[in-house]
């Protein structure tokens, strides 16, 4: 009886938690299916069936508008950034984890300081760097995908190093030594030992870097104009003085979630193990 009661309470708690998570997404989808005139008045939570979906919310931004381009820009920026950050973080973390560098603790701490100030504090200096300092003739980093890819490294790399440090520290050094004795070099260690051993952690590092880059708004809004605009900055365009296009905004928001959902579903089995890998190292 008590066991059943416990199960029931557990079920209710998890149901409530799931609802809290799912309702905003469901609501966003419902809004994306409604015409502008249906959206005002009493909120209506009922689902819209396929034949009643107001497709213009999807077609106008993506087919007639520029949102397909924004989506593509987001995919390029987030994916390239995640790859670059992961590669650099593996190299840097291995060095920090294995070698007694002079003031290595300070280097680690210094790296982390990049995450301490809010990104808004960097906005104006970055704007000047991108548009004036890093400029040759008419070419600058402003409004380029390359600019965003490099910029997000500044914020994602410290996080990735911090995440991987504990994981790499948890891999026995004896394995490294065995490879060296067998005639291998440091690249052999990284590719044959570290990466396979830390695969779940590396996957979660790449995933989180990707998500941070995918969702970032503030820097992208300031440092892009027409050629490298990403999906989050495009969402802001729906809020205007003549009204907010809620339906299209929800549709674009919903579509922009899909790549992230696909990406997460591909690596989800690594997420828990990745986050806890090395956590029990005593």
């Amino acid at each position, binding site marked *: 009886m008590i066991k059943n009661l416990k199960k029931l309470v557990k079920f209710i708690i998890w149901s409530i938690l799931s609802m809290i998570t799912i309702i905003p997404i469901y609501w966003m989808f419902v809004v994306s299916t409604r*015409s*502008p*005139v249906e*959206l*005002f*008045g*009493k909120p209506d939570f009922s689902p819209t069936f396929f034949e009643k979906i107001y497709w*213009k919310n999807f077609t106008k931004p993506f087919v007639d508008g520029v949102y397909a381009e924004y989506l593509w820009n987001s995919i390029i920026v987030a994916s390239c950034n995640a790859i670059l950050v992961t590669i650099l973080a593996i190299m840097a973390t291995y060095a920090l984890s294995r070698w007694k560098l002079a003031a290595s603790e300070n280097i680690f701490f210094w790296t982390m300081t990049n995450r301490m100030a809010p990104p808004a504090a960097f906005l*104006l200096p970055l*704007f*000047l760097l991108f*548009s*004036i300092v890093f400029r040759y003739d*008419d070419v600058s980093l*402003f*409004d380029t995908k390359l600019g965003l890819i490099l910029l997000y490294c500044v914020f994602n790399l410290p996080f990735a190093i911090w995440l991987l440090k504990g994981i790499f520290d948890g891999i026995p050094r004896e394995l490294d030594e065995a490879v060296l004795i067998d005639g291998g070099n440091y690249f052999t260690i990284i590719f044959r030992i570290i990466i396979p051993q830390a695969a779940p952690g590396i996957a979660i590092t790449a995933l989180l870097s990707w998500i941070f880059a995918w969702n970032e708004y503030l820097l992208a*809004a*300031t440092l892009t*104009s*027409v*050629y490298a*605009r990403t999906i989050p*900055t495009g969402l*802001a*365009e*729906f*809020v*205007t*003085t*003549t*009204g*907010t296009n809620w339906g299209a905004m929800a549709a674009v928001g919903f579509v922009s979630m899909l790549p992230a959902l696909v990406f997460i579903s591909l690596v989800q089995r690594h997420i828990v193990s990745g986050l806890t890998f090395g956590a029990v190292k005593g």
Partner: protein
Amino acid sequence: MKKLFLSVFASVTALTAVAGGHDAFWKSAGQPYKGVTLQGVTENTPPGQFVSEVLAKDFEKLTGIKVRLETTSWDQMYDKAIKDMEANTGIYDFVYIEQDIIYSYLDRDFLVNISEGLAANPKLQAPNVDFDDFTTFINYFKNGKGDVFGVPMEAFIKVYLYRKDLFENAEARAAFRARYGYGLEPAKTFGQYRDNAEFFTKFCADQGMDCWGTTVQGHTGHPASTYELLETIFPSFGVYNWGINMDNYQASVENGGQLNGGRAKAALRFWTGLLDFAPPEALQSTWSEVGASFAAGRAAQGWVYGENAAWIATDEERSRVVGNVGVALPPTAEGVMMQAASGNGYIGYFDGGAFGIPHSSKNKEATMLWLQYLGQNEVQADWAIAGGRITHKATYSDPKVVAVDAKADAYFTLMRDTGYLFAGAPPYPFHGAGRAAIDPFIFKALAGELTPEEALDQAAAAVDELMKELEYAE
């Protein structure tokens, strides 16, 4: 018959020659700049979208000059344009200038003098563009000498919208007369407005309708509410220029201003009192939500920016009240209409914007061509229909515009005939700072944390202090 044929032939030939001549001008004038890309920034509104999707493409076909227009949110638009001009980065070749910010831009020497630019380079002067063709709204973009710094791309007046179906409802009319002792009509006085608001709030509730008596642009954390008070409610009560004395830039009564004067306090009391008869979203409503509330049929009347009037009245996809929208002049206090008619006051807000060329632009000459292209009579009618905006005198009589006007309860006609009664923001270079000083007190009055009297006394003191800090006053 032969005469008629010849006359038609001659007219067609002449028109073709003129059109061809204009095409020839754009082609030859654009030749030196072929391949150049002009970059601009504007708000993502229907007039901006029309520029981006239609006019920019036509201009490129004709001249070979590419135009990339970034359409973004209102705050981002300002943030990016100002950063660009302050840092002299030259990212943008043209920027949107709202009527109320031009004085700050001119004060900081951000903009290129277009009149001087064209006079210095007659080759760039388009034969079919004349700044005199614009409505008087272009005057807001001129300096003291009459030189133009911005080519208007949108202009609206803030009007009084009401629900014709509700006001003409026989049951409502009878009930109103029984309760108030006079006939139900769109408001001409504030007393009438309040009675209408109170009446329809109860009437809608009794009828089980999801509607209230009035909209209020009463966001408690957004400057839109301060703007509604200063630019819409105040002038209709006879308080002009935000209640700031233009001679000594002081706001409090004791220093010669009117911000905390009797009329201003009456205006704020009236306006905050309307919240009792407004839909629940009123305290979160900026300019866009007010339009959306009205379009959704949630209010019987309200002050609505004219850029929304046309779509609310005509666009069935976005509005539930198509066919039932009445457009009229807003109510005014006694004597205000006469003051406005004589040029000594105004009854509401004339809103809009223009495209100007930042000094940091790297393609000033090509941009002058582009802005003139936007200033042609020939492109105005379709633009007016797409964006509900009119900047040229001739646009009002275009048959396409006349047809839309008929569906929008003669909003365009009202704008043409009574536009002179409205005014833009006063020429304050301290516009942003001044408004920000007033904001918190208006927000508190709306939230009920301060009485209207307390709010305006404190706001006036804050403005006086700010003017001293900014050295506009001693």
